[in-house]
C-alpha cells in the first residue's frame, strides 16, 4: 500500500454536519434514507445534493419519518447495500424499534446521531440524552470530540460494522460541533477506497434465491425443515452480546490501521491526556472531552496533577482498559450530559461498574452538566474539580447522587 498517496489530504473548513456528509460520501454509501430534524437537517440536505449532482452514486430515499428511514436502511442492508442515515433527539427516539431490529438482524448500518435534548419541554439544543437512552439496543456507540473525528469515525464505522455485523452509531454534539466550522483534513477518495473496500455482504436477500430472515424464533433451539438444529432466540441474543464484547479488538485494530494510512490514530477505546502523572482524572464524552483539556490546563497551572480521559467508545464499554487507566487516580470527576433519572449520569454508572473488583480505589464524583444546550465552560469544570478535591480532602467520599451545575 502506498502510504504517501493515502496521506495526501486537503484541509477544508467544515462544520460537523458537512464533515458527516463528507464521511458518508467518501464511504461510498449506496442507500441513504433520512428524515430532516434540527440540528441534523444539513446532513440530509448535503447528501441529497451529492446524489442529485451525481457526485455520489447512491439512492436517496425520501421517507415520511425516522422510523421509516431506519426501516429502509435495514431493508436495503439486507439486500446487500451499504446504508447510511442520520438523525437527532425525537427522531432517534422514534427509531427506537428499528434500532433493535437493525442490531438484532446483525446488519452493518451506520447512523450519525447529532446529539440533541429530548422534550418535553421542547428544546433543539445539545445534550446526549438521545443516544445514551439508546445504549441498550445493541449498537456500537462512538462519540466524536471534533469535526475531524466525525468524518474519520464514519469511515471507520463501516469497516467495524461490516467486519462484525453490528450497526454503529457515530454521535456528535448538536450545534457545538454540528454548526461550528473548524479545519478538517478530507482524505482523497482513492485513499478511502483502499481503507474501505466495497461492501461484501455475507447474506443477500435475493428473489432468485428466496429466504426467510428473522422469522418467529422460539425460546429453545429447534430442528428446522431441513433437519438442521437452529438457534433459539436466546442463543441469537448471546451471539449479539458476544459480538459486542469481542468488538473492542476490531475497533482498536481498525483505528490503528486508519492511523497508519491517514496519520490520525484511533487505536484506543478512549482518549488519554496527561494521565501518566495524574492523581485526579476528569472524564467526559464528546466535545466536552475537549473543553476538559482546557480545564485540566487551568488546574495544572494551579499545581494540581490533572489528566483527562475522553470516552470515545461508549458501547461496548471498555471496562478493563478503563480500570487500568484509572488505577493510579485518587479522584475521578465525571461530567455527564445525560441523566439516568433516579440514579446518576450514565457514564458515571458505567465507570463505577468498570472499577468494581479492580485495584482502582478512586473517589468518584459525578456532575450533570450542559442539558438542553446549557453552556459548559472550562472554568466551571475546573471549579467543580477544585470543589470535589476540597471536600474529598475533608473526608467527604462518594456521594449517593450526582451534583448538578445549574441554578438550583
Amino acid at each position: 500500500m502506498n502510504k504517501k498517496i493515502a496521506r495526501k489530504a486537503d484541509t477544508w473548513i467544515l462544520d460537523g454536519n458537512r464533515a458527516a456528509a463528507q464521511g458518508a460520501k467518501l464511504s461510498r454509501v449506496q442507500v441513504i434514507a433520512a428524515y430532516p430534524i434540527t440540528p441534523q437537517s444539513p446532513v440530509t440536505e448535503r447528501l441529497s445534493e451529492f446524489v442529485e449532482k451525481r457526485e455520489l452514486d447512491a439512492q436517496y430515499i425520501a421517507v415520511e419519518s425516522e422510523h421509516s428511514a431506519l426501516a429502509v436502511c435495514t431493508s436495503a442492508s439486507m439486500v446487500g447495500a451499504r446504508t447510511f442515515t442520520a438523525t437527532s433527539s425525537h427522531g432517534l427516539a422514534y427509531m427506537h424499534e428499528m434500532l433493535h431490529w437493525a442490531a438484532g438482524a446483525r446488519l452493518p448500518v451506520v447512523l450519525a446521531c447529532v446529539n440533541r435534548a429530548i422534550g418535553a419541554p421542547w428544546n433543539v439544543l445539545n445534550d446526549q440524552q438521545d443516544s445514551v437512552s439508546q445504549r441498550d439496543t445493541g449498537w456500537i456507540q462512538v462519540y466524536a470530540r471534533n469535526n475531524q473525528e466525525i468524518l474519520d469515525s464514519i469511515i471507520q464505522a463501516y469497516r467495524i460494522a461490516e467486519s462484525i455485523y453490528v450497526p454503529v452509531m457515530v454521535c456528535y454534539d448538536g450545534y457545538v460541533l454540528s454548526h461550528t466550522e473548524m479545519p478538517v483534513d478530507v482524505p482523497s477518495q482513492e485513499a478511502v477506497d483502499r481503507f474501505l473496500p466495497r461492501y461484501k455482504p455475507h447474506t443477500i436477500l435475493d428473489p432468485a434465491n428466496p429466504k426467510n430472515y428473522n422469522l418467529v424464533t422460539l425460546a429453545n433451539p429447534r430442528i428446522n425443515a431441513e433437519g438442521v438444529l437452529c438457534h433459539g432466540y436466546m442463543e441469537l441474543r448471546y451471539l449479539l452480546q458476544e459480538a459486542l464484547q469481542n468488538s473492542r479488538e476490531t475497533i482498536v485494530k481498525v483505528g490503528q490501521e486508519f492511523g497508519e494510512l491517514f496519520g490520525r490514530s484511533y487505536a484506543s477505546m478512549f482518549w488519554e491526556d496527561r494521565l501518566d502523572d495524574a492523581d485526579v482524572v476528569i472524564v467526559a464524552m464528546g466535545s466536552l472531552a475537549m473543553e476538559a483539556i482546557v480545564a485540566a490546563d487551568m488546574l495544572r497551572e494551579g499545581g494540581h496533577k490533572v489528566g483527562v480521559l475522553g470516552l470515545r467508545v461508549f458501547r461496548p464499554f471498555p471496562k478493563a482498559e478503563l480500570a487500568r487507566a484509572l488505577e493510579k487516580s485518587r479522584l475521578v470527576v465525571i461530567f455527564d450530559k445525560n441523566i439516568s433519572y433516579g440514579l446518576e449520569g450514565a457514564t458515571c454508572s458505567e465507570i463505577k461498574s468498570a472499577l468494581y473488583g479492580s485495584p482502582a480505589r478512586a473517589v468518584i464524583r459525578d456532575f450533570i452538566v450542559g442539558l438542553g444546550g446549557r453552556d459548559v465552560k472550562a472554568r466551571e469544570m475546573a471549579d467543580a474539580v477544585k470543589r470535589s478535591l476540597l471536600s474529598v480532602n475533608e473526608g467527604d467520599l462518594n456521594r449517593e447522587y450526582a451534583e448538578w451545575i445549574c441554578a438550583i
Partner: protein
Amino acid sequence: MQDYYEVRWHGRGGQGAITAAKILAQAAYLEGYHGVTAAPSFGAERRGAPVSASTRIARQTIRIVSQVETPNVVVVLDYTLLRYDEVTSGLVKGGWLVVNSRRHPKELDLGGEFNIATADATEVCSSLGLIVAGVTVVNTAILGAFIRATEAVSMASIEKAIRERFSDSKVDINLAAIAQTYKITKLGKVV
C-alpha cells in the same frame, strides 16, 4: 497581530453575521493560524432579530468549544444593537469594538476601556449596490473595518477567502466594499 483572538459578531438575522464569522475564520486559516473555529449563536434565528456569532483564531488547534465570554473584538453590523448591554459584555480592556456607524468613535460615547472603530459600511454598500432582497449586505464590508482596526489578518488573506467562498460574479463587488470600508474606517484608541 496577536496569537489568539476571540471575536464576537452582532447583527440582525439576514445581515450575514454568521457568514462574516466564517469568512474571517477561513481567512485566518489561510493566513497561517492553525486553529480556527466559527460558530453561530445556537438555536433558532429569525430575520431582523438580534443574532450573534463567534470566530476564534489561534496558532494551535482550538480545544475550547464553549461560547465566547471575553472577546478581544466585538463587531456590530447594526449600530442600533449598541443599546443592548450584551453586545459589549465581556469585551476585554484594550480590545476593539468595530461598529457599522456613520458616527465618529468619540461620538458613540460608550465609556468602556476598549478601542472603537467605526465605518459607514451601509453607505459604502448601498452606493456599490450591494443589496440583496432589499437589504444592504454589510457583512463583507465590515471586514475592512475589522482588519484596519485589529490587523489580525491581511487584506490578501481576506481576498483569498472571498474568492473561495463567492461565485466569480460576486467577488469584485465584495472586494470593493471591503477596500472602501477599510479606507474610511475611523479609529478611536482610548487605551
